[in-house]
């Protein structure tokens, strides 16, 4: 369980995290998204006990990150964004060392190391020196390290950064497995990944939490203009004029392929236009092939909530890989 309230971190000359509050329950996978410099990494570092907040509090696995830092660190598995490792060590020795430092009881240590080696697919490379490994393999070593002490809370900063598609799939499966009985907080630039993995989204921008909830909740809340998608066969121009005449319709976008027309109808006040549109179409006997409310894609949500104050930062979003 992670509970954050009014968390603020001020660096000299910059506010990295500005009054952020949220809660992630056990058995939930929450995803942090936001442009570079939004404060995701700083927040995660505070939750992992690496930095202390300037103001506000954070409780992780039942302990305060400032007062009971050691208890928090004992219960958190943390994979930093840069995935730093002691490169001169061998995979197996490194994991054994980390298990000892993370207070895994000696009787269980060997077994835990074997388990994470298997779980992260490192069996063939267990005797390799870490700095000789490829980026993907090193990322797996970092994952194994984060999990070796069976943490209650797992914090992963960009876990799939720099991995090839197969490795990304493996890591996703691993995370979904973790989410069954642990609290997982991850950050990512890849929106489709977050949407697939996370039951809960936390969108940060310029140090503030600008949106949180399930992907559906967020996109519904942000749908200021209810949008309906229509496919109608017939005379495109006449139909467009007809649709525009419907009350509360603000805008109609039209594209045609042959006599098949696709319309995107936006309402002026965010209300649901579907019943009204159905009546109009039925009244004029238009041949309607499709009538559906259009949900915002995560990319659209992201660009809406992070575009309000364009200062160059929002433009850099998604370029972090």
């Amino acid at each position, binding site marked *: 369980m992670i509970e954050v309230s009014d968390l603020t971190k001020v*660096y*000299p000359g910059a506010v990295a995290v500005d009054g952020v509050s949220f809660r992630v329950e056990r058995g939930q996978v929450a995803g942090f998204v936001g442009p570079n410099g939004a404060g995701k990494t700083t927040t995660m*570092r505070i939750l*992992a*006990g*690496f*930095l*202390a907040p300037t103001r506000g509090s954070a409780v992780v696995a039942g302990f305060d990150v400032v007062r009971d830092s*050691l*208890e928090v*660190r*004992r219960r*958190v598995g*943390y994979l*930093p964004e*840069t995935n*730093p*490792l*002691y490169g*001169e*060590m061998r995979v197996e020795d490194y994991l054994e*060392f*980390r298990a*000892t*430092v*993370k*207070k895994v009881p*000696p009787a269980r240590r060997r077994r835990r190391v074997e388990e994470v080696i298997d779980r992260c697919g490192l069996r063939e490379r267990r005797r390799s020196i870490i700095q000789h490994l490829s980026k993907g393999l090193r990322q797996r070593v970092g994952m194994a*390290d984060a999990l070796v002490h069976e943490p209650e809370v797992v914090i992963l900063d960009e876990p799939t950064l720099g991995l090839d598609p197969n490795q990304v799939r493996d890591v996703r499966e691993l995370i979904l497995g973790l989410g069954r009985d642990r609290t997982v907080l991850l950050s990512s630039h890849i929106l489709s990944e977050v949407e697939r993995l996370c039951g809960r989204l936390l969108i940060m921008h310029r140090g503030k939490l600008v949106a949180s909830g399930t992907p559906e909740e967020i996109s519904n809340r942000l749908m200021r203009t209810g949008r309906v998608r229509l496919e109608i066969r017939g005379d495109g121009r006449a139909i467009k004029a007809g649709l525009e005449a419907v009350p509360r319709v603000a805008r109609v976008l039209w594209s045609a392929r042959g006599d098949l027309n696709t319309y995107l109808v936006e309402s002026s006040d965010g209300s649901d236009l579907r019943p009204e549109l159905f009546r109009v179409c039925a009244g004029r006997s238009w041949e309607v092939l499709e009538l559906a409310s259009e949900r915002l894609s995560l990319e659209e949500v992201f660009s809406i909530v992070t575009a309000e104050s364009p200062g160059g930062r929002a433009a850099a979003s998604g370029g972090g890989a």
Partner: protein
Amino acid sequence: MRSFLALVRRELGTYFVSPVAYVILTVVLLISGLVFSHLVARMVEAAVPFDYSGILAVILWLFVITSPLVTMRTVAEEKSKGTIEIALTAPVPEAQWILAKYAAAMVLLLFLALPTVGFALLISRYGQVDAGAVACGYLGVVLSCSLAYAVGLFISALCSNQITAGILTFTVAFLLLVTSILAGQVSSSSAWSRFIEYVDLSACYGDFVRGLLDVRRLVYLLSGTVFFLFLSVRVVESRRWR
């Protein structure tokens, strides 16, 4: 305790994975070996007793001068490579982390100083060696290095570039060895000259090798070590709040 030992083992490992341990060993054995053979030759020519304090002085100088090689990377490298982030998000108190680095440096010192005991053993086969004075001299070497390593660790904790840390530590270590030369520049009765005489490692060592265990010297070296280790821990702890 178990995690402390694991940390010490890892630190020690880095000395032997990198050339540091071998470089220091080579420098110390080569130079002290040359001095030793020179002293033996003089002993034979002039038919005087072997002067063991000479060889100990060289050993002390060599270990103190090479102390930057031992300590410069300890904290600075973890900061520049980012491994401090995994080190300090494990349930390890900052004090334990620093002490493990200090302990590893001291174990390395004992390991590297061990072969030089061979000189004493060699002499004792053919002539007289004052075992007490030699043991006392080695105590002086260990305690002086202890202070030098604590200072080096502190400097490394302040820097995020190990070369900077190395150069600064070298400067301080060198000054600690030669302050007695500076003492000649100030009037002998002033507080400055007493201070300089107090902090000078060569003067400390002079007492030790004569078999003189002066409490003032012990207090200086041990309290200095504790003081700089304490400061190092504070520096590392303060990182969380910056």
